[in-house]
C-alpha cells in the first residue's frame, strides 16, 4: 500500500477527520462508493457497528481495543448518546476477528476520531431507522415522535420500546452517513465524566486481563530465548527437560525452543533448565553504546524533505543558533509482561491476546504458521498498559507455536520480566539537529534534520513478518522493511514540522534502514523526541532573541487555538514574563499540537536540581489541553496527566542499556522508572470546544512535558541538557 493514498482527510460531517495511519490493514479501501466518515469508510454496514436486541439493549461492536485508556467507556458514551439509550443498556464488544469490524491497530490517539465517528453516525442512523419503524406502526410522522431511554413515544401517548422493534430493524444495510448526529447542546452522556466500565473488576480481583484467562485443561508455556539477537541454537539437553516434572511438550523448530508444563512454576523451571543446557552460536554484535548516535547516523538512510519553505536568505544581523539533541532507545516496559493464550483444535486456532490489532495479528500469524486467516480467530483481552507495540503480538505467536504440540490443550504463555525487557521492540534512538536564526525577536530561518530507525514494525506489514519467534524458525521468516508513514501521522518525523509560523524552513527525515536494536511503535512514535528538540530549540532561539519563552511562542503561533492553550497554561502556572531561575529552581514551558492535527497541549513544569547528587525533582506541573469536543472530562485529564508523568519518567530515567554482546536492561533495577515519591503534582486545565470535532489526546502530553523539563533545567541552571535521559551523570556533567 502506498502511503500517499492514505492521507486524505474528510470533514463531511464536520466531525469525521479520516486520519488513516500508514495502515497495514488488509481491508481494501472502497474506491467507488461515497466516502464515509471515520471507520465507516472501511466497515460500511450498520450491522458491523450496532445491534438492537430484543431486551431493549444495544450491542456496540468496535475494532478498537481497551489499552487502559478508557476507550471502551468513551465509545459506549458516544453510542448511547446517539441512540438515546442509558449507558447501562449498551454492551460493547471489541477486537474480535470473529465479530467486530476491522479497524486495524488501536494506535496514534485515533480511536475517538475513527471508531467514535463511525459510532456517532451509525448510532444516529439506527435511531432514525427505529423512529421510522415506530412512525409506520403508529401511522404518524417520525418528526412527531419523542425518544427517551430507548422508548419511543407518540404525541397521543402510545409507546414502543427499541426491543419491540429489534426484529424489524434491518441494520444489514450500508450506512449513508447522512443522518445528522445530535447537536452538542443536546448531549447528556457525551461530555460527562462517566466512571470507567472496567475499573470495578480491576480493584476486586475480577477477571480483567488475558493474564487471568483460565481454560479447562490449560497448560503453561515458556520460551527459551537466545542469549542475544540472532543467536542460533546448536544443542540442548532434551532428555533431561522432557523428564522434568509436569512437562507435557517440548518444541524445537530451528532456533525456537519452548516448553509446556502442567503448572506454571514447572514450565519456568523447565525453561530455566533448557536455557542452562542450550548452546548457541553468537549473533551479530550490537553498536558500541558509547558511540551510538554516530554509528546510527552512519547507517544507510532514506531521506525525505518533508517541508521546504523558501524565502529570501537570512536578514543581516540575524543571530544563528545550532543544536543537536539525542534520545536513546526506550522501552514500553509494561508493568505486566506480555501474555497470550492459544488453542489449536481441529485445525482451528483461537488466540486470546492483548494485541493492539486483532486483524493484522491474525493475518501475520497465518503467514508465520502457514495457515489461512479464516482458520484463526484472534480475540482481544486486556493486558497491562502497553503504550505501543510491545511483546503482545510476539507472545501470541509463541503460544500458537507451542499449542501445535499440546493435542488441543490451551497454552498460556506469559513472558518473564527479563524476556520482556530484552526482546520487546523499543522506541528508536534518535538524533535531531537544528539550525536556526533570529532577528528582531522573530525566527527568520529554521533547518531541522531527524535521524531515526523505523517506528512501524508492527504485524500486518505486507512485505515481511513482524513477529519475533518467526525469525528463529527452521523456515525462518524475515521482518518487514523500515517504514515511514507520511502525512498527517508521520513516524520518526512525527511533529518534526513545527506548527509555528516561520518564513523559511527546511525539515528532513532520515529513515535509518537498518535495525541494530529491534524497534517499533512506542507512544507518540517520533513525537516525543521531535517536540523535545523543537521546543528546546524554541527556547534556545528565544534566549538568543532575548525574549520571554512564552511570549516568543505566542509571537510565532498563527492558530487562535494554539494561542489559547499556551495562554491557559501560563495563567494556571502564574507565569511571570522574564522569570528567572535561581541556580536550583526554575520553570520551563513546552507546547505542541500532537501530530500537528490532533490535540493541542502545553505544559509548564518546575524543577529542583540537586547540584550535588545530580538528581532533578519535578515538584509541580501545569498543563492545558484543547481536544475539541470533550467526550469525558475525567478520562481526558487521566490521559493527559498519565502521559505527563510517563514522559517525566522517560525523560529523567529511561534508556535501554546494552553492550556489544546484548541487551543488559533486564529488570526494573537496570531499567528504572519514576516512583511514587518523585511524581509531580499536576494541575490540568481543559479547554472544551463543543462545536469542534473530538481530537485524539492520548499521546498529546508526552512531547510538551520533556521539552518543559529541558527548558526548566536550563532556566534553573543556565545550562542545557540535549541528550536524554537527564540522569544524574548527565546533570553533573552539564553543571561541571
Amino acid at each position, binding site marked *: 500500500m502506498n502511503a500517499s493514498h492514505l492521507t486524505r482527510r474528510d470533514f463531511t460531517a464536520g466531525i469525521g477527520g479520516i486520519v488513516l495511519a500508514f495502515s497495514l490493514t488488509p481491508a481494501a479501501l472502497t474506491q467507488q462508493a461515497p466516502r464515509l466518515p471515520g471507520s465507516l469508510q472501511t466497515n460500511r454496514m450498520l450491522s458491523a457497528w450496532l445491534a438492537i436486541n430484543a431486551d431493549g439493549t444495544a450491542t456496540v461492536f468496535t475494532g478498537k481495543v481497551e489499552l487502559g485508556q478508557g476507550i471502551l467507556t468513551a465509545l459506549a458514551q458516544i453510542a448511547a448518546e446517539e441512540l438515546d439509550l442509558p449507558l447501562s443498556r449498551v454492551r460493547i464488544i471489541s477486537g474480535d476477528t470473529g465479530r467486530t469490524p476491522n479497524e486495524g491497530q488501536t494506535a496514534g490517539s485515533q480511536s475517538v476520531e475513527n471508531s467514535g465517528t463511525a459510532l456517532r453516525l451509525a448510532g444516529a442512523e439506527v435511531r432514525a431507522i427505529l423512529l421510522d419503524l415506530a412512525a409506520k406502526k403508529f401511522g404518524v410522522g417520525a418528526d412527531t415522535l419523542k425518544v427517551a431511554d430507548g422508548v419511543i413515544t407518540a404525541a397521543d401517548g402510545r409507546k414502543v420500546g427499541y426491543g419491540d422493534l429489534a426484529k424489524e430493524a434491518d441494520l444489514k444495510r450500508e450506512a449513508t452517513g447522512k443522518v445528522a448526529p445530535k447537536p452538542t447542546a443536546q448531549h447528556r452522556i457525551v461530555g460527562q465524566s462517566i466512571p*470507567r466500565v472496567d475499573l470495578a473488576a480491576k480493584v*476486586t480481583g475480577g477477571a480483567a486481563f488475558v*493474564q487471568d484467562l483460565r481454560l479447562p485443561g490449560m497448560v503453561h508455556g515458556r520460551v527459551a530465548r537466545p542469549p542475544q539477537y540472532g543467536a542460533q541454537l546448536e544443542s540442548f539437553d532434551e532428555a533431561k527437560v522432557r523428564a522434568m516434572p509436569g512437562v507435557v511438550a517440548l518444541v524445537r523448530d530451528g532456533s525456537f525452543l519452548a516448553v509446556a508444563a502442567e503448572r506454571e512454576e514447572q514450565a519456568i523451571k523447565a525453561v530455566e533448565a533448557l536455557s542452562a543446557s542450550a548452546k548457541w552460536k553468537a549473533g551479530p554484535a550490537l553498536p558500541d553504546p558509547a558511540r551510538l548516535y554516530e554509528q546510527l547516523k552512519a547507517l544507510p538512510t532514506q531521506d525525505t524533505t518533508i517541508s521546504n519553505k523558501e524565502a529570501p536568505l537570512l536578514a543581516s544581523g540575524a543571530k544563528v543558533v545550532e543544536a543537536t539533541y539525542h534520545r536513546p532507545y526506550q522501552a514500553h516496559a509494561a508493568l505486566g509482561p506480555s501474555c497470550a493464550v492459544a488453542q489449536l483444535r481441529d485445525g482451528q486456532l483461537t488466540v486470546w491476546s492483548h494485541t493492539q490489532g486483532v486483524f493484522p495479528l491474525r493475518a501475520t500469524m497465518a503467514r508465520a504458521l502457514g495457515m489461512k486467516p479464516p482458520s484463526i480467530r484472534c480475540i482481544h483481552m486486556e493486558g497491562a498498559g502497553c503504550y505501543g507495540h510491545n511483546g503482545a503480538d510476539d507472545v501470541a505467536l509463541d503460544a500458537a507455536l507451542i499449542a501445535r504440540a499440546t493435542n488441543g490443550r490451551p497454552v498460556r504463555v506469559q513472558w518473564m520480566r527479563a524476556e520482556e525487557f530484552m526482546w520487546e521492540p523499543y522506541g528508536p534512538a534518535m538524533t535531531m539537529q537544528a539550525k536556526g536564526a533570529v532577528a528582531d525577536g522573530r525566527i527568520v530561518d529554521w533547518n531541522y534534520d531527524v535521524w531515526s530507525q523505523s517506528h512501524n514494525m508492527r504485524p500486518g506489514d505486507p512485505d515481511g513478518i513482524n513477529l519475533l519467534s518467526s525469525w528463529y524458525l527452521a523456515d525462518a521468516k524475515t521482518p518487514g522493511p523500515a517504514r515511514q508513514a507520511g502525512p498527517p501521522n508521520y513516524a520518526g518525523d512525527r511533529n518534526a514540522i513545527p506548527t509555528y509560523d516561520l518564513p523559511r524552513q527546511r525539515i528532513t527525515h532520515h529513515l535509518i534502514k537498518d535495525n541494530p536494536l529491534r524497534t517499533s511503535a512506542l507512544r507518540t512514535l517520533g513525537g516525543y523526541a521531535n517536540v523535545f528538540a523543537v521546543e528546546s530549540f524554541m527556547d534556545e532561539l528565544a534566549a538568543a532573541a532575548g525574549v520571554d519563552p512564552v511570549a516568543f511562542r505566542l509571537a510565532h503561533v498563527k492558530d487562535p487555538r494554539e494561542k489559547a492553550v499556551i495562554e491557559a497554561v501560563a495563567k494556571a502556572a502564574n507565569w511571570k514574563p522574564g522569570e528567572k531561575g535561581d541556580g536550583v529552581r526554575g520553570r520551563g514551558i513546552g507546547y505542541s499540537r500532537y501530530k500537528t492535527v490532533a490535540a493541542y497541549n502545553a505544559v509548564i513544569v518546575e524543577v529542583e536540581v540537586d547540584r550535588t547528587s545530580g538528581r532533578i525533582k519535578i515538584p509541580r506541573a501545569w498543563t492545558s489541553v484543547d481536544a475539541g469536543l470533550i467526550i469525558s472530562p475525567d478520562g481526558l485529564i487521566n490521559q493527559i496527566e*498519565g502521559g505527563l508523568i510517563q514522559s517525566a519518567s522517560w525523560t529523567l530515567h529511561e534508556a535501554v542499556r546494552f553492550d556489544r554482546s546484548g541487551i543488559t536492561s533486564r529488570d526494573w533495577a537496570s531499567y528504572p522508572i519514576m516512583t*511514587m515519591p518523585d511524581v509531580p503534582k499536576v494541575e490540568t486545565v481543559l479547554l472544551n470546544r463543543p462545536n469542534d470535532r473530538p481530537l485524539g489526546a492520548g499521546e498529546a502530553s508526552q512531547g510538551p512535558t520533556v521539552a518543559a523539563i529541558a527548558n526548566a533545567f536550563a532556566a534553573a541552571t543556565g545550562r542545557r541538557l540535549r541528550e536524554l535521559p537527564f540522569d544524574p551523570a548527565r546533570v553533573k556533567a552539564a553543571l561541571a
Partner: protein
Amino acid sequence: MAVSLKVNGATRSVNAEPDTPLLYALRNDLELNAAKFGCGLSQCGACTVLVDGVPTRSCATPLSRVGQSEVITLEGLGTTAKLHPLQQAFIDEQAGQCGYCLNGMIMAAKALLDKNPRPTEAQVRDGLAGNLCRCGSHNRIVRAVLRAAQTNGRI
C-alpha cells in the same frame, strides 16, 4: 504434594511443591486473579498480598515460608457488591488506567493504613514507593488512599 494454606479466612489445600511461589498457587490453584505477575523479582509490587498483615511479594515467597500464616488477598478485602473503603475510594477517584498495578497499590495501602490510619500525603507516597505504575496513575492513587483514610475515620 499437598500444601495447606490459610487464604482469606479459609483453609485451602494446593498440590504443589513447597518451593512454589505463593503467587502461582493463588492464581492458578485457588483461581484468585488479583495478585499479578509483574517481575517475579520483588521489584514491582504487582503481586502483593498480606501475610499475617505484612505486605508481602507473593512472587518471591515460597509456599514453605507461608506455613499456616494468614494470607489476605485483594479478594479478601471486599467484593463488587460490598467494596472495602479502599476499593471504593479507587473507583471514586478513577484511580488507574490499565489497572495492572492496582492490586499491589491497594494491598500496600491497606498495610499502610492499618499501621497509620491518618497518613499525610508524603507518607502515602513513601508507603507506595516500592509499587511501580507504568501508566502515570500515581496522583490518583495517592488521592484514593487519602480518601479511604478519611472514610475509615468516619466509620
